[in-house]
């Protein structure tokens, strides 16, 4: 202990303290502060980047799962729509068929009726016309035959010729 005290140099103590404090304040200003600030900032940046990456990953996963759900939903809907459309098509076709048949029947029936009516009308007209013609011919004939004696006898003669008496 005594040796330690005798070895103690006040001058060395003074210079050591002075120089160390100077070094401390210089390093604090020019080295430790910028270094620690930069390191902290960098570490915070890395942490934040990792966090946001994790968040993005989660978001993506969520998006992916919702995507597939959406796709499934769309598929189901399409199926449903197709089914509905098919049913509607069949219905429409059946309806159209029955309607067409009905219409055709109706048209046919009315046509038949019309034909019937027209036919009877035509027959009626034919009847009157035939009667008319007959009268006219008879009239002409009578007039002609009665006006000319010769001719009348010729006619009778030709008619008699034509008739075969067998």
């Amino acid at each position, binding site marked *: 202990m005594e040796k330690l005290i005798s070895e103690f140099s006040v001058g060395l*103590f003074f210079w*050591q*303290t002075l120089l160390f404090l100077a070094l*401390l304040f210089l*390093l604090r200003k020019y080295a*430790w502060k910028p*270094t620690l600030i930069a390191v902290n900032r960098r570490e915070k940046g890395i942490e934040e980047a990792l966090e946001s990456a994790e968040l993005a990953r989660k978001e993506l996963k969520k998006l992916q799962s919702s995507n597939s759900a959406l796709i499934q939903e769309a598929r189901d809907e399409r199926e449903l729509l197709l089914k509905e459309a098919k049913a509607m098509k069949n219905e429409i076709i059946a309806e159209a068929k029955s309607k067409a048949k009905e219409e055709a029947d109706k048209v046919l029936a009315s046509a038949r009726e019309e034909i019937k009516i027209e036919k009877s009308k035509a027959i009626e007209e034919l009847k009157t016309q035939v009667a008319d013609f007959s009268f006219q011919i008879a009239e002409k004939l009578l007039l002609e035959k009665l006006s000319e004696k010769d001719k009348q006898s010729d006619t009778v003669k030709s008619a008699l010729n034509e008739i075969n008496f067998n």
Partner: protein
Amino acid sequence: MRLKIVFSFVLFALIFNPFTVRSEHSDEGGDSTDIRAEIKEDILHHLQDAHDFHLFTDETTGTHYSFPLPIILLDGGVKFFMSSKFHHGEEIAEVDGNYYALHHNHIYKTDAEGTINYDENHHVTNAAPLDFSITKSVFSVMIVSIILFLLFKALGDGYKKSANPKGLGKFLEPLVLFVRDEIAIPNIGEKHYQKYMSYLLTVFVFIWFINLTGLTPLGINVTGNIAVTFALALMTFIITQVSAKSTYWKHIFWMPGVPVPMKIILAPIELLGVFIKPFALMIRLYANISAGHIVLMSLVGLLFIFNNWFARGAFLGLTLFLSIIELLVAFLQAYIFTMLTALYFGFAVEEHDDHH
């Protein structure tokens, strides 16, 4: 690769050690007791601070290879001169009519003839002026401080360009992170550690680098000076007491959670602990570094005492091994000093009472 560098460094240190160079010359003529005395003298001399920067001595011609350092004395005014005036302790320096002599690395006031008076215990009785000289240790601290400042300023400046360190910063940044993540945060806690970071970082890199200079062939021994470790421990002590919260003082003077008689017994013990902690810091660093230097120098000395190549080879290997251990110790002591400092800061700012 790194190991290779360490090896070549240690080898270099051994080959060019000033002590090694010096002993080789004395080996030629002297007998073994002479060498032993000289080795002991050399080690003791090395452990002390010096007033000039001694590199080595050519004993055949008696030339000292060294450069002088400024001497600053407080003796009725500031006396300033270069240490070359002492001629390595061989001459008396005369300044403003006062005479000073260099005796065992201490400066004493003497008469014109340089008489040194001793008492019966062989202690020098001459008056000693207050010595504020730039000694070898002070000079080394200056150089290391400049190097540290330039190194770590480069690290700090590097962040202006990029968030990731480049070049040298790649080596230096992990040191900062080590102190923060392994020393400051575990011992002080996330909440309070920031205000101590500057001190912890400075203490850590300073002790480590100054310890490393002690392993160079320059023969520097800064942290083996009690004044240096005292200065460092005192700063830890002052910062601890100044930043201490009420809980800290309560735990010293009126320990919560124990019966009243125990409180009375514990108070002086705890109060003593306040001073013992930095005292232990001071002694630990001083003793470890001094012991390391003594052991290494003794082993190198043994190389010259044994006149047997086998023994010399064995001691060379042992010296090499211990040099590597000392490299580890240089780091370890810096780490322990910083870690315990952080621990004491942690006690000072602790807020909860649940650790009994």
